[in-house]
């Protein structure tokens, strides 16, 4: 099976997944008990006014009609209006997306960077303290609930030793000038992104170390060593190059987790992002908003899964065939 066929197959599956999620999403949110009028509790908001509002939200249409409208509008990224603010959900999401992306990218770059570096280092020095550290950090990642660790950091460095901001993405108002603004943003990023990095780098390091060790035991590396190549050259020129493909794949495989984790991180650090929008919307039973946020997150996850498949197929030809079974 060629790469193109493989790719088409994966794309087709991604579309199926998307369709299933969308349909499921539709059914679910129509069945939810919340409606726009239940958010409005005001003695002077009469039943007639409520009925009017329901009509405006198109809640009285036949479900099939609603479903058709729904699919068509999602294709155009028209996510409807939030019940709570009555603004277009797309616009509210777009306001928050830059915040989520900046948090996400910062966390990701540092987490992967530090993790890979430490992993390589640990592979180079087997049995050292670094290796124990890496194993420990990997275990830490696995056992410690992210939100607990983040709460601890927040209490310690936000409230007790007040060196980092405890809410928001920028100071209100931000300082004048470009660089002061960048610094201000970074200052706000330290706790949320930093906690993600500390929690997450361990598994990267562990993965890199294991991949490196596997590579180092390969025949060609042993040959290279035997030829008298320096340890450094073996490590970085040969071994590292051979583990890059799985690491690149891991990059994409870890994206969904990061997107998902945004819900908790953003909630804890009062970060005005998409994840927090989802949880706020769910708690308020604002279904267009929750649906829009979920749609965006689901697309991010599906796309990154697809990219992972794509890269994986590219770097590891075996998978095109084995993909049948995986």
């Amino acid at each position, binding site marked *: 099976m060629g790469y193109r066929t493989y790719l088409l197959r994966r794309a087709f599956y991604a579309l199926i997944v998307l369709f299933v999620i969308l349909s499921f999403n539709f059914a679910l949110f129509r069945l939810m*008990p*919340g*409606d726009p*009028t*239940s*958010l*409005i*509790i*005001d*003695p*002077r*908001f*009469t*039943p*007639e*006014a*409520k009925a*009017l*509002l329901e009509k*405006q939200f198109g809640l009285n249409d036949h479900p099939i009609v609603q479903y058709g409208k729904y699919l068509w509008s999602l294709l155009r990224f028209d996510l409807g*209006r*939030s019940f*709570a*603010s*009555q*603004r*277009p959900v797309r*616009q*509210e999401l777009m*306001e*928050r997306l830059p*915040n989520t992306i900046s948090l996400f990218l910062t966390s990701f770059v540092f987490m992967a960077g530090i993790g890979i570096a430490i992993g390589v280092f640990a592979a180079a020095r087997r049995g050292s303290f670094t290796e124990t550290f890496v194993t420990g950090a990997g275990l830490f990642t696995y056992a410690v609930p992210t939100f607990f660790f983040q709460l601890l950091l927040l209490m310690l460095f936000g*409230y007790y030793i*007040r060196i980092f901001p*405890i*809410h*928001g*993405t*920028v100071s*209100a*108002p931000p300082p004048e000038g470009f660089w002061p603004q960048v610094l201000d943003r970074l200052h706000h990023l330290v706790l949320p992104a930093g906690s993600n990095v500390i929690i997450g780098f361990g598994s990267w390091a562990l993965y890199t170390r294991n991949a490196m060790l596997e590579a180092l035991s390969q025949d060609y590396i042993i040959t290279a060593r035997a030829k008298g190549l320096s340890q450094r050259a073996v490590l970085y020129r040969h071994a590292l190059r051979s583990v890059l493909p799985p690491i690149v794949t891991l990059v994409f495989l870890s994206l969904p987790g990061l997107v998902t984790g945004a819900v908790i991180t953003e909630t804890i650090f*009062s*970060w*005005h992002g998409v994840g927090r929008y989802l949880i706020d919307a769910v*708690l308020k*039973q604002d279904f267009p908003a929750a649906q829009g946020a979920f749609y965006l997150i689901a697309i991010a996850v599906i796309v990154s899964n697809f990219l992972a498949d794509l890269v994986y197929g590219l770097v590891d030809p075996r998978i095109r065939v084995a993909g049948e079974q995986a």
Partner: protein
Amino acid sequence: MRRGRNSKLFSLAVGLLALSLVAPAALAAQKVQYEKTGPRVDEIIMPIITESEAQLIAFERGETVVLPGLTKPSDIDKVKANRNADLTMNLGFHMFYLAFNMRREPLSELPIRRAIAHVVNRDQIINSLFKGYMLPLNSFVPPSSPYYNEDVPAYDYNPAMAKEVLDKAGYVLDKATGIRIDPKTKKPLRKMTIYTPTYEVAPTSAELGKMIAEAARSVGLPVEAQPMDFNVMLSNIDNRDFDMYVLAWGLDRIPTFLYNFFHSSNDVIEGYNTPGIRIPELDAALEQVYYAKNEAMAKKGADEAQRILSREVPYVTLYSRPYIDAWRKDMVTGYVPMMGYGAANYNNKWTTLNIRRVDGPGGTIRWLLPENPESLNPLTTTSAYSWEVLGRLYDGLIEVDPNTMKDIPWLAESWEVGTWSPEKGKTGTKITWHLRKDVKWQDGVPFTSKDVKFTLEYLKKNEVPAYQSAWQDLVKVETPDPYTAVVYFSTESYWHLYHANAAFLPEHIWKDVKDYKAFQPWLEPHPTVKGLTKLIGTGPFVFKEWKPGDYVRLVRNPLYFAAAK
């Protein structure tokens, strides 16, 4: 009008307050100094901080000069410990209550409702859940309202009386089970549930439900509290699928809420008469309130309605939350405590105008916004936090005196309430506004009666749900001259005076807005004036910037008609 200008009503006899609440006489008797001009600062930065603990820290650090609407006892204690904090407290129109479903056995029986009313221990609730920072409420109209009837008997905490009421009505206690026997069916009373919001949403309400249920069980009534998802609860209430529930109302000065809550016409699915009380003599009294020709008639109807309600017990009212605001007195001064709204609420024009820095005129103050406003469209937003911003941009035709609670002419110099005949044999209300001649929109265009006419007609044409009370009975608006607007309503009610007092829209901006719901005035630049958006009012502050989730920035309106000289 939801959270709009006219939710502030009416003269409130100050002396009345101290009578019935155990309320501090000193609070009622406050006589605050304030000016009717302003503003006195150049800029307000409103940082958006949603976590209550982060808010406290911001206050401590001076990143906000005010903590508006404190409700958590621990927060209040924390603020009290700050030497630079000044706390203001004002009685409000908040009401927390337990409602009965009178359509269902055995809650349809008066002795059961009375017995439950007698086992509710308000003091215990307030002390253990609110550390004493609430005021017990034992009437259907909060005592801060001029329509409060002090002669109505109240149900005090008295379990012995509860037992007596039940015994007399034949509900005999079955000693073996501890449950009373229904004299009609000869069977033990069925289990009754109190719906409450969950601990996550409203921990105090959930706890309170539990306390009431326990108290009821102690007199042999099998009552249990059931915390549930807030929207499920509201939906159940809407569909009348409940025994009892606890919830709060934010009322206002107009007593028409009595009509909405207890008139038989509102006993429909999703109507506000959730207990399902239907009593003709009550309906008559409530109609007298709702269609009052004047204040006196409304008062008479309200008095009668409260007498009947107290007898029938469709609700047990529990407590009322006062407005407690904290101020950094080392940084600002000039905030004006105000009955019914507190010192920091946007309905309190006087704080907006009078607040100033202690270190001199002008400058910037930072004013906490506890939630992201979500929208700044005055016609669609239902969020109080949006109004915390919008309220500083707009003026009412009438404002309210913080000391006497009397109407103060504001954009209108004067007005008359009269009648007219919409058709033969019918009487409608006619309100004539005489507008000030020196008021300008923030872009320099004069504010005239055409704007009044445009706004009311725009609301009616678009059937804006949130403003239904303004347009549903509106017939027409006439503008005999630029400074006179005559508003005609098809029904006769004194309250139309306040219905006609909207957050007015500038005609020259809004006349081109086809879809009011899609309009986002704060994002569109003003067509002619640089630096402004299409979000303009006549008020003391001009909207500059909103960074969602982070802050809102307002600056002084240089064209303000009431600017300090």
